[in-house]
């Protein structure tokens, strides 16, 4: 009888060889993600405390318009995200549970199609709705509802409600237009998983629409809602092209300031400090949102 061979110490088992092979396969995408993700963040941080080592860049964040810009960006992020959710709830509920099955796919496709379209172009299309000679003003003046064109495009900003600055009309519409489809898609996924019989059961027990919404729909789809919010929030707060095209001159957002520091002023350290500060604030928000395991599960789907 041949003796028992204890193989547990031997490095070149098939399993170990598999590990080496798989590490090799993982190397390429990981290298890209590190080189363009982790390394630049490192550079950003180093840059933000230079020359040599200083905190003056961060100290400068407190001055001038920067706190306002930061607050405005975050506030507009909250407002737009809220609007997207408010629209997405009834639309995805209807789509997932009330829509006749044969229209469902077509409608879902048309609601998510803008995800595939160029947002610079989509933003631009609003110019023709809101401009002085745009659709709305033409309609208003033609019908006599207004005697001269209203200042809808990049105008009339800075209505402040509590801590939040409301975006101007054109900026708000432009943002909702490009980010609503993301929220619709995320919400639809979790709405579809909601068991409609729960709604029927609640109705059967005498719950009205508001009760059903509060007791069944919100708890069941809350994960999807927060996930959708997390996905769009940082993008709205950090948007550059949309405010460049649709914002009033008085409502600069953080990305515009960062870009100006980088491109026009060529003050890299300050651009970096602004970026790091903004990133820190956004990540804290993510941290709070992602504390819930429901939300993590929803985000896992992305």
């Amino acid at each position, binding site marked *: 009888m041949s003796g*028992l061979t204890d193989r547990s110490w031997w490095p070149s088992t*098939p399993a170990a060889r598999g590990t080496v092979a798989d590490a090799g396969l993982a190397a390429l995408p990981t290298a890209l993600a590190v080189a363009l993700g982790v390394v630049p963040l490192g550079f950003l941080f180093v840059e933000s405390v230079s020359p040599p080592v200083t905190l003056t860049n961060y100290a400068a964040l407190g001055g001038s318009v920067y706190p306002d810009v930061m607050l405005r960006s975050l506030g507009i992020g909250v407002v737009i995200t809220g609007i997207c959710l408010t629209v997405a709830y009834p639309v995805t509920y209807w789509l997932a549970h009330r829509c006749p099955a044969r229209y469902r796919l077509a409608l879902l496709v048309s609601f998510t199609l803008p995800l595939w379209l160029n947002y610079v172009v989509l933003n631009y299309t609003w110019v023709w709705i809101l401009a002085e000679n745009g659709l709305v003003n033409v309609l208003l003046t033609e019908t006599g509802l207004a005697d001269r064109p209203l200042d809808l495009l990049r105008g009339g900003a800075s209505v402040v409600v509590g801590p939040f600055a409301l975006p101007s009309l054109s900026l708000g519409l432009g943002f909702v237009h490009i980010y609503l489809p993301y929220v619709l898609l995320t919400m639809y996924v979790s709405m579809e998983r909601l068991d409609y019989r729960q709604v029927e059961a609640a109705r059967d027990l005498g719950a009205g629409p508001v009760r059903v919404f509060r007791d069944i729909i919100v708890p069941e789809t809350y994960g999807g809602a927060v996930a959708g919010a997390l996905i769009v929030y940082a993008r709205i707060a950090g948007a550059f092209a949309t405010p460049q095209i649709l914002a009033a001159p008085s409502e600069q957002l953080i990305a515009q300031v960062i870009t100006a520091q980088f491109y026009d002023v060529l003050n890299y350290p300050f651009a970096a400090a602004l970026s790091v500060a903004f990133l820190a604030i956004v990540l804290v928000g993510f941290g709070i949102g992602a504390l819930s395991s429901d939300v993590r599960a929803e985000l896992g789907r992305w």
Partner: protein
Amino acid sequence: MTSGSSQMTLRTDGLVKRFGDTTAVAGVSLAVEPGEFFAIVGPSGCGKTTTLRILAGLESPTAGEVELAGRDVTDRPPRDRETNLVFQDLVLFPHMTVAENVGYGLARDGVPEATRREQVEEMLETVGLSGFGDRDPASLSGGQRQRVALARALANEPSVLLLDEPLSSLDRTLRTEMRTELRRIQRDVGTTFLYVTHDQESALSMADRIAVMRDGRVVESGSPSTLYNRPRTAFVADFLGDANLLTATVQGRENGRVTVEAGGGRFDAAADTGVPDGSVTIVIRPEDLRPGGETLSGTVRSVSYKGAHEEYGVALDGGDSVRVRTRADGDVTVGATVGLDVLDASLVTEANTEDGE
């Protein structure tokens, strides 16, 4: 290497597999002969699947060796082993037709297209699926999918076919039918079958030899009738069928048999193993207790009608309870006193049966 090992199609020696802290297999040694239908049975979680996966090369053992046709294949990848596995959940390739599934192994062996098609057709015929070649696996019934899995694993003529509970997903009727089929196919192709199941009925009805596993070890192995009629352990006795286990004292012994006193009576029992002194355990199958005798006596506590036969629960005067199985004649009632003859009994070691199921 041991002499004679080359006659064995498959040998394992002291296989051990640990997953972190769990020891799934704790030293399994098996020897399967060419053309044999060998079954491994054991309760759920005893390490059957792990053993099979080690044999197939899908898992590498922590310790121990696997030898196929006299060659050590322990570190060979699955594709270099002449074993094929029929997975418990079949895992047919969903993107291939039935014929492509069956021909997959042949294609990997480089068999040219034309020959392959012929062989696949032949194989499908063997498993009773001629004409199903172009079907999509998803469109087949459970039993048909089962046959496709079998055909796929048999097509490139492995020297050992490993089957992991292949019938567990089928309903009872189909399972019985497939058992007969499997046996027929095994005789037709002459391949060695190593069949793993937790269903002792399948094992007893199909296998030439059985190994009973428990907690990662082989407890006993032998022919179905030996294991059933002459189990050497209480665990095997209990696992392979209904068993009455009685504590007994040895009164006398002569070559291979002992006289014991148990349950208030005295009778003979077979004893293949060494007989300890003092208290022992004996097994009596319910059908080996015949009412109307006088070796043991007791009171009927329950009667259950099972179609062709009846079962009584009897409280023996000596204190133990036993089950009695007999042809249904309906003249036994609860509360009646019965006398029982012991037709057959065997002495077993280790009385512990608590993790029997």
